């Protein structure tokens, strides 16, 4: 799949670089980036400076106290590990089922196919809160409370319809003629899928995998009701725990924020173009 930005026709007009244009660009940058900058400097300030009034925009004293506390006095790494386990498990199940399901929805005819696609779209809109009570009671019924597998299974309930919907759009955008050509050239169905469709669908699959991963990585609600044991907590509810300490340590919370944000940032910058492709195809088309 060609990269979207590269295939764009060039704007005929020269790029706008007046003062006003730069002012709004800088405004957008400040709006998006300032809270993150503030999180970073707050995590590196000395305790007394953190609570100083007026606040310092560039710390006078740098300290790693908050990070030391985070790494040695909390279960941060356990939370991180649990989050990765749940997110990977969710993504693996959702992508495996979703890819073949979406392929089937776009390449085969059978009764109720359109109905199934519509139900998928509706399920994609379901907000997680609607599933709160039933999934909690079912998890208790099947002994899946305080279980990372149980948590991953609940994430399937709202990420699989979403994945199916996006992947279906991706598979629809791959011309069927390419597969016809492969079949005429003597490839069988599986070969056509593997050698012709998959390489073209890969950006979409990656984008969908990332979105699924993020759903599991970000979730707070289900982890809150399903996980009680500290050694099974994910990042979201683990950090929430820091708030219940006798004295709220803002430096510690900001340090945790930075530690969760940095891997996401690195990851995100490297795969940004897939994300944009995914978003463009997933939400809206035509």
């Amino acid at each position, binding site marked *: 799949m060609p990269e979207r930005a590269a295939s764009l026709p060039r704007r005929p007009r020269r790029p706008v670089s007046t003062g006003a244009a730069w002012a709004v660009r800088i405004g957008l940058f400040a709006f998006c980036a300032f809270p993150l900058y503030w999180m970073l400097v707050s995590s590196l300030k000395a305790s007394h400076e953190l609570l100083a009034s007026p606040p310092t925009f560039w710390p006078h004293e740098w300290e790693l106290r908050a990070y030391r506390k985070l790494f040695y006095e909390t279960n941060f790494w356990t939370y991180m590990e649990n989050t990765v386990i749940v997110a990977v498990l969710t993504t693996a199940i959702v992508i495996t089922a979703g890819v073949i399901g979406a392929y089937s929805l776009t390449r085969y005819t059978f009764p109720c196919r359109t109905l199934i696609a519509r139900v998928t779209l509706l399920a994609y809109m379901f907000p997680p809160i609607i599933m709160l009570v039933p999934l909690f009671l079912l998890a208790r019924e099947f002994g899946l409370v305080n279980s990372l597998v149980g948590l991953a299974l609940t994430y399937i309930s709202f990420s699989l319809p979403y994945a199916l919907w996006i992947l279906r759009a991706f598979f629809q955008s791959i011309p069927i003629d390419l597969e016809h050509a492969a079949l005429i050239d003597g490839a069988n169905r599986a070969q056509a899928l593997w050698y012709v469709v998959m390489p073209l669908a890969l950006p979409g699959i990656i984008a969908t995998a990332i979105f699924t991963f993020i759903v599991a990585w970000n979730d707070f609600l289900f982890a809150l009701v399903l996980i009680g044991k500290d050694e099974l907590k994910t990042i979201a509810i683990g950090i929430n725990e820091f708030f219940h300490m006798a004295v709220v340590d803002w430096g510690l919370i900001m340090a945790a924020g930075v530690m969760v944000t940095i891997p*996401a940032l690195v990851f*995100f910058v490297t795969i940004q173009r897939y994300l944009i492709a995914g978003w463009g195809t997933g939400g809206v088309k035509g």
Partner: protein
Amino acid sequence: MSVGADTLVLVPGRASRRRRESLIGIGLLLPSAALVLAFTIFPVAYNVWLGFYAKHSLRATSSWVGLGNYSQILTDPDFWRSVWLATVYAIGSTALQIVAGVAGALILHRRFAGCDFLRGVALFPYMIPTVIAVFVWRWLMNDLYGVIPYLLNMLRIPGMPEAWLTHTTIMWVLIVLSVWTFFPFVLVNVLARLQTIPLELYDAARVDGASAVRQFVHVTLPQLKNVLLIVLLLRGIWMFTKFDVPWLLGFGGGAGEAIRTLPVFTYQRSFTYYQAGMGAALSNVMLALLLMAVTVYFIAFPPEADDNDA
């Protein structure tokens, strides 16, 4: 997309062969269908059934109360208050997200030095976990040490509140924080659509002497209509049913009550008062509202032949 859904049949042929093909298709769909059925459809159906029972969240017993939960809900002023707060929150944050998202997309549409970098930065608030976003904003807006109240104070605007996480102002904080977190969703969808608008349309408008503003109103906006409608629908539903942002912003402070939206109310019924049946009924109310919104949407804007437009 010029290819309609029904033309995507790979192997034409005789009826027996076609039947074999559809069996394979159903087989491939089976894992997803089973998972969606078990983990999405079944829980929703179970929830509808639960709404008719009085059930403790942790005990196994339950008793049939018919529409009792619903009549209790509809006469509870706290419920109506939570619906009102959720509505204010959904409308306020969705409207501002759309404004910010479209503005951001227009800023990032044209290429300039540092354009890719700024695109990355603009998407980032959507990527960081909600918990982090909310805690960063709680810190930014902290009543004693917050940097934003400090900066606002320097402007010396008369009537500007000193503290923001209070009953009267916390809804504003909730809305601004939500706009910050979720406007990239609007931005990306609008940006993707902007880039597919044929340039000839603008050329024609310019030949006719249209100003930049008129070009936006008469060329860009009509082209964005479909995207904006779907974004409005999705964001409206998702903001109305957002639990984690108001909960994380409000808990632990006395002002949480001022942002106890319907999802927070539902959570509290289910897990603070352990009234699972009541919680289920409240979820069903949200589901009904959602279905109504979707139905109205599809009646007002019928999907075209290709489902992708829906």
